[in-house]
């Protein structure tokens, strides 16, 4: 199973995601990257992140993504 930083790196290899706490605000993820990320997380953790949870605040940093995954029932 891949880690969240590994998945992020596959989507936007040009960025260092450990250096930011606001991926959206810092321009590292746009709305279509978020869609790609959700799809990758769904597959990686065998879950389906609810559509209503696909909002920018849940994808600000690794911690918020982890919280979302736990809420969805994934073992992080």
């Amino acid at each position, binding site marked *: 199973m891949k880690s969240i930083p590994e998945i992020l790196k596959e*989507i*936007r290899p040009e960025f260092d995601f450990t250096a930011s706490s606001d991926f959206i605000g810092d321009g590292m993820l*746009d*709305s*279509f*990257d*978020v*869609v*790609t990320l*959700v*799809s990758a997380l769904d597959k990686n953790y065998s879950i*389906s992140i*609810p*559509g*209503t949870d*696909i*909002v*920018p605040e849940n994808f600000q940093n690794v911690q918020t993504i982890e919280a979302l995954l736990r809420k969805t029932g994934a073992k992080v």
Partner: protein
Amino acid sequence: MNFKFCNKRISGVLAVVPANERSFVEEMKNYNFPEARSLKLKEVMGYDTHRMVQPNVCVSDLGVFALKNLFNRGLLKPEDIDALILVTQTPDYFMPPTSNVIQGKLNLKQDLLCLDISQGCAGYVIGLIQAFMLLEQDSVRKVVLLNADVLSRRTSPKDRNIYPLIGDAASVTVVERDPQESVIHASFKMDGVRHESLIIPAGGFKLPSTPDTAILVDVGDNNMRGQDHLCMDGSAVFNFVQVEVPQIIETVLASANATMDSVDWFLCHQPNRFMLEKLADKMKVPRSKMPSNVVGRFGNSGATTLPIAMAINLTEALKTGTQRACLAGFGVGLTWAAMLMQIGKLDFCDLIDYP
């Protein structure tokens, strides 16, 4: 707002798509994104090909072609049409109504109600509601609902957020009285506060098109578009669909005392595969009951994606029998609408190419 109609039916559906097919992979070079990133998006969203009209083709061209096809095949008689409802966001003119243009081009009778409705992706359900209301009148026996849009003409080819998903199409749905006892439930809502979520800023009287409004500018996310072009707040629209659409479907099912399991098909407007799969999961509906294969083949053509979904997935089922379908449309306005009805046995349910 809830509606209930008795003894009305759809008797036939014809979808028309331009023969001109474009491929996402071929168009990737037009975008300011690395190919690998675009290919990931292609996989998630289900993009592959889309159909677009040639630059001079208008809604009336598609509509006339579709109706002539039905006349020539003897599936519809011009003199039987009592009302022609055209739902479009891309009319030929500001004035006159494009439905009148079509009436004239086809020499349809003068004793005919021609009505343009400005609606987008919810326009199939909204158009059906209007058709059913007209059929309450003794003088109206057959209504043609024509949905058509050529939005590709108002989409920037350098906007990867929008261009790959847009398609052009038209559809004719013949609506008439049903000799069988039948009940149709419908509900819709609108929220003009969020009207800027889907908008073409220039070209109307508020901001007329000028050479400046046609200039492509980087809108901040590597996409290039002008004010003449369709602009969408993707995150806002996605969230709107996930929040509002399940609720309105539940409303319609509740008014009909129907359960999710009793519905054969959830035929939704087709924005992209990802959004529909998330919608199905949220509603706990098997993804197989909610077709999501229109955008990848034809593009998102607005309201016509719903009849296209019928024509490519359910032709035989609808021509040979009856299916209980929950229709749902959602988009510009913002507008969202749902309808529960029996569809079939249809006289025709086809998809043809516009040359």
